[in-house]
């Protein structure tokens, strides 16, 4: 072997890296965990208090006027609906705001992409972290509901998983919005014109059957509607074959938003 080749082969090569490596995902999430450690009180507060207030206001408020909604006790109806809103808001907002701030203002993503991390891993890790949190925060309205007469049910153990998948889709949606928005003010449009109607036309506080024709159809394409149905059936012990369809829609939504988010943010991160 020539001296030149010997010198080259003597250099230790780094281990080979592939696609969507768990080590890379863990590294990105470790950063999120550290930041969460610093701000967990504020993050948890905002993710739990708002849905809880809805629950108390509608639950106690309507609960005295109306004893059942459909075939379901009011407290059960509202509590399970609020689970979905908790998941929605604890995933879509971080998806939008965290992404935008880290990307544009702090250039954090630029720093990380100079390491053996690619765009797909970075975005997937950020979405995964938000989804894990959303799955946990989704339990909060149920816990509050217990104090007001909601009966614990084995099916409720599925809530973190349902919250995770729903949260994944909405977190990815938030990332997609952040990638496309020109300024952070543009998020107002999404919040008012998309998220707010979304959580109202989902069967969260009242059945969609009460809504006019046309609007009712919108519920079918609203992922949150499917989340609410699934959460309600799981929590009340009324799971049936149709719930597989709801789960399927949530998974498809998550998958679609995931790829779109990577595509759009990737285009902006790499020149």
């Amino acid at each position, binding site marked *: 072997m020539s001296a030149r080749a010997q010198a080259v082969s003597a250099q230790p090569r*780094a*281990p080979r890296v592939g696609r969507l490596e768990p*080590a890379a995902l863990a*590294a990105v999430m470790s950063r999120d965990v550290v930041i969460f450690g610093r701000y967990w009180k504020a993050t948890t507060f905002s993710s739990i208090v708002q849905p809880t207030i809805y629950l108390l206001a509608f639950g106690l408020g309507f609960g005295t006027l109306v004893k059942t909604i459909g075939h379901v006790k009011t407290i059960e109806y509202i509590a399970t609906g609020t689970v979905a809103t908790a998941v929605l808001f604890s995933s879509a907002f971080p998806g939008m705001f965290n992404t935008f701030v880290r990307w544009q203002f702090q250039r954090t993503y630029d*720093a*990380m992409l100079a*390491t053996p991390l690619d765009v797909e891993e970075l975005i997937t890790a950020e979405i995964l972290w938000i989804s894990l949190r959303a799955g946990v925060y989704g339990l909060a309205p149920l816990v509050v509901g217990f104090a007001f007469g909601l009966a614990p049910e084995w099916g409720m153990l599925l809530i973190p998983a349902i919250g995770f998948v729903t949260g994944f889709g909405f977190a990815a949606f938030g990332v997609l919005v952040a990638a496309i928005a020109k300024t952070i003010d543009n998020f107002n449009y999404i919040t008012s014109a998309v998220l707010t109607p979304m959580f109202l036309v989902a069967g969260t506080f009242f059945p969609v059957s009460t809504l006019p024709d046309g609007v009712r159809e919108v519920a079918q394409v609203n992922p949150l509607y499917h989340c609410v149905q699934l959460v309600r059936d799981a929590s009340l012990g009324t799971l049936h074959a149709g719930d597989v369809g709801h789960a399927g829609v949530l998974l498809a939504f998550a998958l679609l938003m995931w790829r779109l988010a990577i595509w759009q943010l990737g285009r902006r991160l*790499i*020149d």
Partner: protein
Amino acid sequence: MAQETHWSTRAHAQPPAISLRGVVKRFGSIVAVDGLDLQVPTGVCFGLLGPNGAGKSTTMRMLTAQALADEGELQVLGYELPRESKQARMEMGVVPQLDNLDVELTCRQILTVFARLYRVPAGERGAAVDRALGLANLTQRADTIVRELSGGMRRRLLVARGLIHEPRLVLLDEPTVGLDPQVRQELWTLIDGLRVRGVTVLMSTHYIEEAERLADVVAVMSHGRIVAQGTPSELVRAHAGEQVIEVYGPPQQLAELGELAASKSWQSRRSGPALAIMRAEELDGDAPEGVRRPANLEDAFVALTGEEIE
């Protein structure tokens, strides 16, 4: 431990650390990199010297595949870019021009996250972080939040972050821009230490003194391509000669002298309150009265790019 070999010996023993051939990068109608040919030998401190807008930062981004070339071939550490970029980045460290540190985290936390990103094995992470903190002289500040660090400390942390995994190639993009002289000296010592350890360094800068001091080889970049390359002394000799006469005087006189120089095909340039005439050793009797000084890299640079730099 082997004796320190001269960089040129190390360089010839191995394939180049970086190889760019005919690289072009456009942003809309602007051509930032315009047919760039660049070979960075292994074990060398290579200075990429050029004014702002020359294409240095764009070149750095292409080396980490954070920008994709429109044309040309790129190789880093034998890996083809952008296809094998992730693999190349395992063995490469980057110190960016702009501060992109997490202001909310401590030095130790940032270094730990990056140790993970660079796949430093779990058992070695603590030692790697301590070593990087020591290298950047930040051991006392390990648990201080970045927001509370001075500008110089933040820059040192940026360097430490790029070296956490002991890479064999380091990219430094304008490492001392905006720093005061003392901090600049500290960083120069740090960078010099890398050379001694045989790490290949590619350093882009618009400070001529920095290139002259630290770089074994300097490539002058202008308008997206390399216009000259060599050791600092080779560049000086080739483009500015050995001696320079500086003539001081009022602007009127200097303007007249400038025209005279042009008519006689003398190489000259304005340098503040003086007119500097290059290759004074060739002028003999013709030379005007003035102060003789050795030619330096700044003379060569201005001759090559036509640009004045601070």
